[in-house]
């Protein structure tokens, strides 16, 4: 098992390496002079020269890569062209809203999707099941931002229950304002994720409910609640947790859009502002950050299986 853990941890290195190489090459292989692209249409020759120097574009590409990689390994993501601040500082400033939104969304999603999927599987073929499945397909079809605006229209403009936009810190502004502001963004971001998790929960639980041991449990008079919780859900946990991990990719894309709709000053807004200003070091840094977080979350989930699921032995 230790061997497996070591191998699994090591296997993330080439993946991260590919991500780093790709992000590095994206700028260098783009058509035209990257410094001029970043500087924009109204740049002077000095601007371009300054950016060229800042990004080390005068060196041979191999030298550039290893310099860049060396800095990266020391946690240095470069310096923002527009603000002249280190990218890591900018990220640190914007981290809280994004982490909070992600956590509330994850919590809400799991609390809603797993019971919903289990219920659908338990009542397979029934009206409830159909409704859950229709919701799952619909949730995958509605664009995140359209949903966001519909919720704003109903809850904030028509009913005036919740604030239209903005973010309040739970630490500085208190619990009440935090939840009033985070409710709609969380709902918006959760829908597609709930659709995904409910669907996979239904499929996994349905499969387990066909197993002989479930029939045995029912035959010996075990209550349905116990059958569902102790036998079905517990054994269906592995695929469900796997998809929760894979779904983080959806969440990351959704965060960018949701933060834009609700004007939340998080990492998603940081990347969008950077795109508009062509602040490439920020874009690069955030792509790396999001990708590494995704890889690490899925690594952790894989490793947890070996601890929690005795059937998985490598």
């Amino acid at each position, binding site marked *: 098992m230790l061997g497996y853990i070591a191998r699994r941890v090591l296997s993330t290195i080439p993946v991260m390496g590919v991500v780093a190489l790709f992000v590095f090459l994206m700028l260098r292989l783009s058509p035209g002079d990257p410094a001029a692209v970043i500087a924009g249409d109204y740049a002077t020759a000095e601007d371009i020269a300054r950016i060229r120097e800042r990004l080390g574009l005068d060196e041979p590409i191999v030298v550039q890569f290893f310099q860049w990689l060396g800095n990266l390994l020391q946690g240095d993501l470069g310096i923002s062209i527009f603000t002249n601040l280190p990218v890591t500082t900018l990220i640190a400033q914007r981290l809280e809203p994004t982490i909070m939104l992600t956590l509330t969304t994850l919590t809400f999603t799991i609390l809603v999707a797993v019971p919903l999927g289990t219920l659908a599987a338990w009542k397979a073929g029934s009206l409830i099941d159909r409704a859950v499945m229709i919701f799952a397909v619909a949730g995958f*079809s509605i664009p995140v931002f359209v949903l966001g605006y519909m919720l704003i229209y109903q809850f904030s403009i028509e009913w005036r229950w919740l604030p239209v936009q903005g973010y309040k810190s739970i630490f500085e502004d208190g619990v009440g304002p935090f939840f009033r502001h985070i409710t709609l963004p969380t709902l918006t971001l959760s829908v597609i994720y709930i659709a995904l998790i409910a669907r996979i929960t239904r499929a996994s639980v349905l*499969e387990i409910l066909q197993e002989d041991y479930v029939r045995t449990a029912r035959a010996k008079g075990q209550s349905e609640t116990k059958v569902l919780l102790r036998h079905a859900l517990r054994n269906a946990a592995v695929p469900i947790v796997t998809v929760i991990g894979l779904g983080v990719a959806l969440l990351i894309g959704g965060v960018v859009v949701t933060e834009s709709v609700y004007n939340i000053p998080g990492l998603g807004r940081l990347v969008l502002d950077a795109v508009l200003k062509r602040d490439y070091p920020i874009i690069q840094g955030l792509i790396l950050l999001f990708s590494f977080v995704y890889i690490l979350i899925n690594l952790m989930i894989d490793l947890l299986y070996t601890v929690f699921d005795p059937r998985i032995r490598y």
Partner: protein
Amino acid sequence: MTDLPGDLPGKSKAEDAVPEVAPIRGSRAQPGMLGLLLGHSSILFGAILLLAMVLIAVVGPQFTEDPRALNPIDRLQEPSSEHLFGTDFLGRDNLSRLVNGARVSLVVGIAVSAVAVIIGLAIGMISGYVRALDGIIMRVMDGLMAIPGILLAIALISLSGATLTTVVIAIMIPEIPRVVRLVRSVVLSVREEPYVEAAISIGTPMPLILLRHVLPNTVAPLIVQATYICASAMLTEAILGFLGAGIPPEIPSWGNIMAEGRTYFQLAPWIIFYPGIALALTVLAVNVLGDGLRDTLDPRIARKM
């Protein structure tokens, strides 16, 4: 890490090894006859809805006014008999912009899925057959899959400038790994089949085996995959447009119509709602069609979902 739930160690293999058992389980799991009918009716529903959208996109612009015609006096008008879907902040007719925007969505959806499938098919076949390259190709694909697709597309577009072509390419690149993984898994399972071994033993050249034996096996799963890629590409295109990183505003697309509507949302919510509903319906049609096709073409995967 990137394994789908069905690929879990010791799970899918056991199932695949005993295909005779599978249908019995499946028929108990799915509501049997009803499931089958549902499969067909969802194909029908999706296809009709999608055809309607295509029809609107193709002939619609003939019947509506110029989507670029400015009429400042009539700006931000509510939906009325004159302007069924209202007007935007420059007094342009929303219905006509929406109908024209349908073209962009459909073109992007179809182009992205077609190109992603062709490129993914080629890379997947190479990866499945040329063992020496398999490791490298799959590591590259794993890396590409780890990068959030929307961020990757935004970055690519910000570097290359937004045109229809760059938007299609930027949306397509993150979709390729999924096709590659699918094709590779088909190649790996087919090459163990007795008829392929027989073909090899009588000296059939490799390209011919790929063409004659492997390719036909990839068709069904690829059609299903292509519909899902099409749906997600249309959503991504709209998101890019909405974020201001998509097709430039000269060409009306659902994404950039909604982006322009953001500022006036409290005054004129219909500017966002109508294209949003059109987009959701189109994506729904494609998704439902995909589910229906999956259930009928690929019952083995259907059971797992």
